């Protein structure tokens, strides 16, 4: 097993990985950009190294600086987390050349699956269905036009190195094609340092269902069932659940076996996710392999009891996978909501700034993977994810109730977040029915608007606070901030009074 791992990421995922390392007795090296000097993830590291200026391109995407940090601290392996360099073939190769283990697939497997176009070509060979479209990236607009005419509009433009909806655009007619190509290229370049894009047919009313897979260096391969990820805004997942209400056991087994086939055909090792689209006739198509630990991995951990990050690290250290397929069971139901610094009532505009007050929920079946503390500044340079609220319960209905109740107890004041919006989705009849697809948010835009039914209560509280709060808190700022815990302390110590 490794003695020391460098974690080339920030925020909640860097903390999640650091915790797995500690449990395995591995010491951790954290890295940070200039603006992240006081970020929470650094408090979980045994050593920290500054890797560059605030823009990601100078720091968390800076391969040279990260390798330099690993060499300087004598880290034997690098965990890339998700986003940034997680699926970057050049980075994996540079690690291999430097004699440092990249915790993920080999650069060769990454070139097959990390690149979406290459991966489509691999999967076609093993009889797993793929979406019609281009089989290579291009900058030739006429090729995009030709393919779009052949498959028919609407079409989807995608970044070959992409993930998380970045660089992705739906195009409904030829008129918008050229402009969308340019936007996708720019977004792809700034997010992944690579502007290769391609086009495929846009599947209408699809559900997005993915399968978690683990595979070791000795050919042992298991899947850990599905995650239903159809609730998305701007092609980015915001709520995930498992099991999916759309699958029966037969389809579940069929898709799980297909996922394993994809991973084996690519000679992929460690943890990976095979994404599928499921159309309204319950036909599934291979979408892509996410060659990383994913944001939504905790729901799989909650229902299977398998620590995916731990398994990922063990496999990277050439240990044998001890799990067999028939040992892995889905127990109960888990839901994750992603907490973002954004304004859902104003077109999801990012909302960086200072968190003035924070209280996070606690209790049975609740997991909070968080990268924030009270008083911290959320910088504008990176992804707006703040944390994730994950719940587990015996069945879907109970999980829905549990997450709804605990979103109420997730208090972040000072910046805009999507917490209220997530709660409106969770509380909607359409979500409860389980019958939804990736257009859920566009279709239910109206009913997801804030109702402001408690505005009068807010006004009463505001008036009481002004009238009593100030006199009672003559040293207002001091006493409010005295409530603030530091990142060195546990966060969210409120005992919540029940409303009923």
């Amino acid at each position, binding site marked *: 097993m490794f003695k020391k791992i460098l974690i080339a990421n920030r925020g909640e995922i860097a903390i999640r990985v650091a915790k797995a390392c500690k449990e395995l007795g591995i010491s951790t090296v954290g890295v940070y950009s200039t603006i992240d000097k006081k970020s929470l993830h650094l408090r979980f590291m045994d050593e920290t190294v500054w890797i560059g200026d605030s823009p990601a391109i100078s720091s968390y995407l800076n391969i040279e600086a990260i390798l330099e940090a690993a060499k300087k601290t004598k880290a034997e392996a690098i965990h890339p987390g998700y986003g940034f360099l997680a699926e970057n073939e050049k980075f994996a190769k540079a690690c291999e050349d430097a004699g440092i283990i990249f915790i993920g697939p080999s650069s060769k497997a990454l070139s097959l699956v990390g690149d979406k176009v290459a991966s489509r070509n691999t999967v076609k060979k093993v009889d797993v269905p793929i979406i019609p479209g281009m089989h290579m990236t291009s900058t030739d607009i006429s090729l995009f036009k030709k393919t779009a005419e052949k498959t028919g509009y609407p079409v989807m433009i995608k970044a070959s190195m992409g993930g998380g909806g*970045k660089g992705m655009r739906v195009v409904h007619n030829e008129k918008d094609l050229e402009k969308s190509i340019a936007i996708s290229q*720019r*977004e792809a370049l*700034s997010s992944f340092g690579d502007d290769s894009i391609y086009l495929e047919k846009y599947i209408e009313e699809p559900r997005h269902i993915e399968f978690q897979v683990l595979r070791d260096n000795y050919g042992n391969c298991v899947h850990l069932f599905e995650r239903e990820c159809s609730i998305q805004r*701007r092609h980015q997942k915001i709520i995930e659940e498992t099991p999916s209400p759309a699958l029966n056991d037969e389809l579940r087994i069929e898709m799980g076996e297909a996922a394993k086939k994809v991973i084996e055909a690519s000679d992929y090792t460690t943890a990976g996710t095979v994404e599928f689209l499921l159309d309204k006739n319950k036909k599934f198509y291979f979408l892509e392999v996410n060659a990383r630990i994913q944001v939504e991995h905790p729901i799989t951990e909650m229902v299977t009891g398998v620590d995916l990050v731990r398994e990922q690290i063990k496999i990277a250290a050439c240990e044998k996978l001890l799990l067999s397929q028939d040992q892995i069971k889905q127990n109960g139901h888990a839901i994750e909501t992603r907490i973002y*610094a*954004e304004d859902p009532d*104003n077109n*999801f*505009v*990012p*909302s*960086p700034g200072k968190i*003035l*007050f924070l*209280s996070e929920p606690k209790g049975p079946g609740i997991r909070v993977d968080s990268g924030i503390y009270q008083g911290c500044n959320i910088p*504008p340079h*990176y*992804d*707006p994810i703040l944390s994730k609220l994950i719940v587990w319960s015996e069945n879907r209905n109970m999980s829905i109730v549990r997450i709804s109740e605990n*979103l*109420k107890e*997730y*208090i*972040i*004041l*000072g910046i*805009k*977040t999507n*917490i*209220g919006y997530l*709660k409106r989705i969770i509380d909607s009849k359409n979500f409860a029915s389980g019958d939804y697809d990736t257009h859920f948010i566009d279709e239910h835009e109206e009913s997801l608007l*804030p109702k*402001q039914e*408690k*505005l*009068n*209560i*807010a*006004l*009463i*509280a*505001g*008036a*009481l*606070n*002004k*009238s*009593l*709060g*100030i006199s*009672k*808190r003559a040293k207002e700022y001091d*006493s*409010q901030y005295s*409530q603030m815990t530091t990142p060195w302390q546990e966060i969210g110590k*409120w005992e*919540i*009074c029940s*409303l009923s």
Partner: protein
Amino acid sequence: MNYKFNFLEKTHKINLEKADDLFKIIINDKQEYTITDVEVESNLISFKADDKTYNIYCFSDKDKTHLSIDGENYTLELEKDIATKAKTGKQQKGNSVFSPMPGLLVKVPVSVGDKVKSGTTLAIVEAMKMQNELPSPRDGIVKKINGKEGEQVDALQVIVELE
């Protein structure tokens, strides 16, 4: 005591009177509430209104009061700030286009003197990896461009001015 709060560009008047153990509150001269069991403890305000108990998290930041009620956040601003608040309206109107958030000015695809139509992209700002196109609020001619491509811009910073 009277308070005027601004919430989403509307002003709300609140009259608060203390009487023994309770408060009488009138909102916008119409709706009356009797408030009892008021407790203010650091960032938590509890009270009973119409026999229902509320526990509300609260943080006062100068003239802004941030509140969280059952998962929904409300930010109230004292009335005196409304004059300066006018320019923070969500609508891009009139003669200028501003960035709705702090971020990186990625591109200004127009030049001074260009004739632009309503809806033409005047600037692209990127924050948290998302690119936002700022459209022209009306037909017009570009008078001034503040800021260069690759520069950091602040929230509400005017980027392009129209004649």
